[in-house]
């Protein structure tokens, strides 16, 4: 398995979250969480949990 490849995927996923933050912003954040997490953080954390 290519570690570099996975790093790129992880990085891309964070970018996805950041883009989603921009698009839907606080509207979605209010749905997703009451905490201060941003979507990119949530996505990566969930991905980590998924494979944990």
């Amino acid at each position, binding site marked *: *398995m*290519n*570690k570099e*490849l*996975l*790093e*790129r*995927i*992880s990085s*891309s*996923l964070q*970018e*996805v979250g950041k*883009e*989603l933050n921009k*698009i*839907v912003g606080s509207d*979605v954040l209010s*749905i*997703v*969480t*009451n905490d201060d997490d941003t*979507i990119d953080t*949530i*996505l*990566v954390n*969930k*991905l*980590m*949990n*998924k*494979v*944990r």
Partner: protein
Amino acid sequence: MNFIDMFLVKLGDRKLLAEPSSVVGLLASSDETTRKQGVEQLTKLLASLVTFYKETIFPLVRTNIDHIVEDAKEDIKEALSYGVDVRSLFLDGEVSMLLRDMVVPKQATSFGKFNVTIGTGAFNVDHENPFIDLFGALSGERKKLAINTLNDLIEGTVDIDDIIIGENGHTKFSDLVIIVNSMSYDKEPEGTMGKVDDYRATLAILKNNFNYYAAKVSLAITRAVENNDLVFGKGEGYLTLYAPVLESYYDQGGTIEGLYGFYLSEAKHISLQAILAKHDLLKRSYEDEYRRMMISKKSVARDVYIHEYTKFVSAHVRNKEMSGNIITKVNTHLNSLSDIELSNVKDRVEEIVVDFLYPESGARRFVDSIDFFKKDIDNTEELIGLAVMDLAVDYVVNGIYVQ
């Protein structure tokens, strides 16, 4: 251990798919422009999912919570009248909130944290246990067995001890726990979010007969207590009941949520572009899609509908004479419909029931308790939002790896 290391360890020797044409392939590309394309596509998918949930699913949840509130309050009162020790009984999910917030808040909360939970649960907890996996299988004889088991329980023909789960982590709980569907998020370790099946099952339950089956289970428990088949508050009993609403959903095409579930289940097998196209189609004309799917299902049968809506009426109308009158009216109505009309009959039947029960309220369904339940509705939306995120992660993970 950092994220990537964890990724490597946990995924072991699974093969990397990451085909160049897949969204994961785009995300993993060494070419920055290509990666941006992947980011854009996945972002678009996520945004569309969130929009769909906000515009379609949330209103349905709100409506259904109205039902749950009113029915569950009555059920709990009835259970209490039989002397059931509510402190040792809570229904996971929405009904548990009723116990927590409305009936016995201090006692109920002593059992710990429980919330409205979306998309997680026993489906993916213990697949070695035949009962817990019954609805996880969601097909064929195993599904039938599960449905029959629950029906037998409701009819009082099964010794409840026979189906107490004995070989999973939940037995560590010292009090009886009833899960009417797959909602057990608060008791699951982080990272055990369910598969797509969980979501569509849960959503189907939210839309359909959750309150009906909650009521039936409540009465089954009451009956069991009366017959000394079940003792509350002792031992490590953990009883899991799955709502056989899945029967109608999977056999007949189900609801708009069911349709959405099919759509999601196909996500692994078609391209991202096709998913988005399908999603747009769904948003534009989901009713037409729904009818088409319903008509195409061979198992759609008039008597099945009549049976389902007879149960619906029975669950909502406690006065037997009134219930009988409504059932007669509903059956007459159903028998007058063509097959096509029958495929979209649910709303019509509900209208009949509502008109009969609340003639002054017009189209309004039952008592408006939204404000009363506002806090928990918010919580539901939050969790659905989380479910959206989980679906996205599911997609990414399933898109990357195979066993």
